[in-house]
C-alpha cells in the first residue's frame, strides 16, 4: 500500500515530547536520565538530517498537501503591507477557490492572485478544496486585465490539485476559461512572478503559473497530472503513485534542473507548516529579488516572457 500521510512529523513531535518528559522527570526525581535523553536527541537529529533533507518525491507530495501548510491568504497577509480582496468574474459568480485583489508589496501596488484551499473540512468545503471552476479563471482574467490597465505587477500563488473535475465546471467552459488565462498571461505587459506554495496540479495550476519567473518552495511539487492519476492510467494501478511521483520529476529541484523553475526557496526543516512566518519571509525575499530583477531588466515584459516560454520542451532533431 502507498503511504497516504506524512508521518515523520508525528514521530518527530513524539520524540520531542518524550525528551521534554524525561527532562521534567530528571528534574523532579533524583534520577539521571541524561543517557536516555542523549539517545533520543540523537534520534531527533538523525530524523532531521536524514529524513527532512532527503525526502522522496512522494513524501514531498504528501508534505505539499499537508493540511497545516500556509495558504495563499496567509502569504498575502504577511507579504503585503496592506491588501484588499476583490470578488467575482462579472458573468456568473465568485469562486472561493481563487482569491485575488490589490495590495502593496514593499510600498508598490501589485495585483495578487492565488488558489485558496481550506485548512479543515469546513473551510475546504467552502473553498472547494482549492479546485477552481471557470468563474474562478474568469475572475483571474478580469484581475489580470485590470493589472495591465493600471500598470501593476502581478504576483500569483499556486496551490491546487487541479481545476475542479465536476459537471458544472464543464458546462460553463472550463477548458476555454483556462486557455484564455494562459494566453492573457503570455502577453501581459507587466511583470508576473509566480510562486508554487503547495501542490501544483495540471492546467488548473498552470493557469496561474505563466510568468516571468517561477519560484517554488523546496517541498512543493508541480506536475502535469497527479502521481495517483499517472499510476491509474499508465501503470493501471493507483498504488504505484509512489514510483510515479519519482518518474514524473515533479519536485522543485527536479524542475529547476529542467529549467522550468527559476528559484527554489528552502523551507524550514520539517516543512513550511512548522514555521509559517519564516517560510513566508523567505518567499517574500525571493519574490522581491525576482521582481526587481525583472523590472530592472526593462524592455518588453511580454517579449522576454515569450522567449522564456518558447524555450520550454525537449526533443531530438533527426534528419
Amino acid at each position, binding site marked *: 500500500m502507498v503511504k497516504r500521510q506524512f508521518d515523520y512529523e508525528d514521530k518527530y513531535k513524539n520524540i520531542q515530547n518524550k525528551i521534554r518528559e524525561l527532562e521534567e522527570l530528571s528534574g523532579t526525581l533524583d534520577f539521571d536520565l541524561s543517557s536516555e535523553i542523549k539517545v533520543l536527541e540523537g534520534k531527533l537529529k538523525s530524523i532531521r538530517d536524514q529524513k527532512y533533507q532527503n525526502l522522496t518525491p512522494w513524501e514531498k507530495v504528501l508534505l505539499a498537501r499537508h493540511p497545516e501548510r500556509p495558504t495563499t491568504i496567509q502569504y498575502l497577509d504577511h507579504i503585503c503591507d496592506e491588501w484588499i480582496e476583490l470578488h467575482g468574474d462579472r458573468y456568473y459568480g465568485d469562486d472561493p477557490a481563487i482569491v485575488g485583489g490589490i495590495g502593496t508589496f514593499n510600498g508598490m501596488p501589485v495585483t495578487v492572485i492565488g488558489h485558496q484551499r481550506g485548512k479543515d473540512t469546513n473551510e475546504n468545503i467552502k473553498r472547494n478544496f482549492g479546485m477552481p471552476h471557470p468563474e474562478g479563471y474568469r475572475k483571474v482574467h478580469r484581475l489580470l486585465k485590470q493589472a495591465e490597465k493600471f500598470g501593476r505587477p502581478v504576483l500569483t500563488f499556486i496551490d491546487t490539485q487541479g481545476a475542479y*473535475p*465536476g459537471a458544472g465546471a464543464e458546462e460553463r467552459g472550463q477548458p476555454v476559461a483556462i486557455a484564455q488565462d494562459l*494566453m492573457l498571461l503570455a*502577453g501581459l505587459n507587466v511583470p508576473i512572478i509566480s510562486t508554487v506554495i503547495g501542490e501544483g496540479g495540471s492546467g488548473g495550476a498552470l493557469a496561474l503559473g505563466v510568468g516571468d519567473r517561477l519560484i517554488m518552495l523546496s517541498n512543493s511539487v508541480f506536475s502535469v497530472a497527479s502521481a495517483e492519476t499517472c499510476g491509474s492510467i*499508465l501503470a493501471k494501478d493507483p498504488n504505484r503513485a509512489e514510483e510515479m511521483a519519482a518518474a514524473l520529476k515533479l519536485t522543485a529541484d527536479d524542475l529547476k534542473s529542467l529549467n*522550468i523553475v527559476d528559484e527554489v526557496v528552502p523551507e524550514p526543516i520539517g516543512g513550511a507548516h512548522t514555521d509559517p512566518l519564516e517560510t513566508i519571509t523567505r518567499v517574500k525575499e525571493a519574490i522581491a529579488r525576482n521582481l526587481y530583477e525583472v523590472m530592472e531588466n526593462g524592455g518588453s515584459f511580454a517579449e522576454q*516572457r515569450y522567449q522564456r516560454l518558447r524555450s520550454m520542451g*525537449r526533443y531530438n532533431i533527426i534528419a
Partner: protein
Amino acid sequence: MLKRSFGKTKYIPVPQEALPHRPPKPDQTVCPQCASGISAEELRENFKVCPFCRYHFPMTAHERLNWIADPGSFEEWDTELSSCNPLGFPGYDEKLAEAREKTGLKEAIITGAARVQGYQVVLGIMDSRFLMGSMGSVVGEKISRAVEKAIERTCPLITFAVAGGARMQEGMLSLMQMAKTSAALERFHKQGLLYISVMTHPTVGGVPASFAGLGDFIIAEPGALIGFTGPRVIEQTLGQRLPERFQRAEFQLEHGMLDLVVDRAELPAVIGQLLRLHLGGNHG
C-alpha cells in the same frame, strides 16, 4: 444492438430516429452507432461517415489532410522533430517506438502549408492513433512553429484537434506546451490573423485548454467529446453516472462553448465560407 466493441466510441448514444439499419456483410465495416454494414467504397465516398446515421469514424491525419487540402497543395514542415525521453520515464521509449511503427508517423501531429478551398493556409492535423493525440514537447513545438510561420506569412491557421489526455511521460515539459502554444497564439491574434479550430472526437485535457480553445472560431464534428476533464473522472468525483450526451459537441454547442457543430460532408464548405468572409484571412 451488436455487441462488437469499437474502443471508446461505444459510448456514443443511438439516436432516437434510428435510421435504416442494413445488416452487415462479412467484409463490411460495422457502424458502432447504428450497427449497419458499410462497404469500404461507401466509407471512402462519405469521408468515413456512416451514410445511415452520420456517425463520424475517426480519421487519421493523412486521411484528413487528403480530404480537406486541395490536391497536391500540402508542404509538410518540421518533420525532423522527434520525441526523446527527457525524464527517462519508464516504458516511454517503447511506447514511442510502438506508435511510430503502428502509424508510420513521427508524432501526433502533422503541420505545414496548404491550400484549402483555394485559400493559402497553415494546417495542423492531429492523429489519435499516436499516443492518443497527447501533446508533448514535439507537438507543442510543431504547433508553435506553425503559428510563427503563419504570422510571418500573414496566413490563416486551421487546426484539427484530437486529444485523449496529457503526455504524462514528459511531465511538466508536456504541461508547459500549453503555455508555449498559447503564447504563440497571443502574438498571432495581435496581428489580426484568422484561426479556425476544429475539435474532433475526443478533444479533452490540455489541448482544448490551450491552443485548440483559442480559435476565433471553434467548430466541432458531430458527437465529438469535448471538455477539460474526461467523463469517467467526473463520474468518479460525483459518484454518479453522467447523461450520455454530456460533453458531446451538441451539448457543448448548447452550453456556449462552440460556434458550430458541422457534419464532415459540409465542413470544407463552411471553412471556405469563413475564409471568404475574412477575404482569405490574408492581411499581407
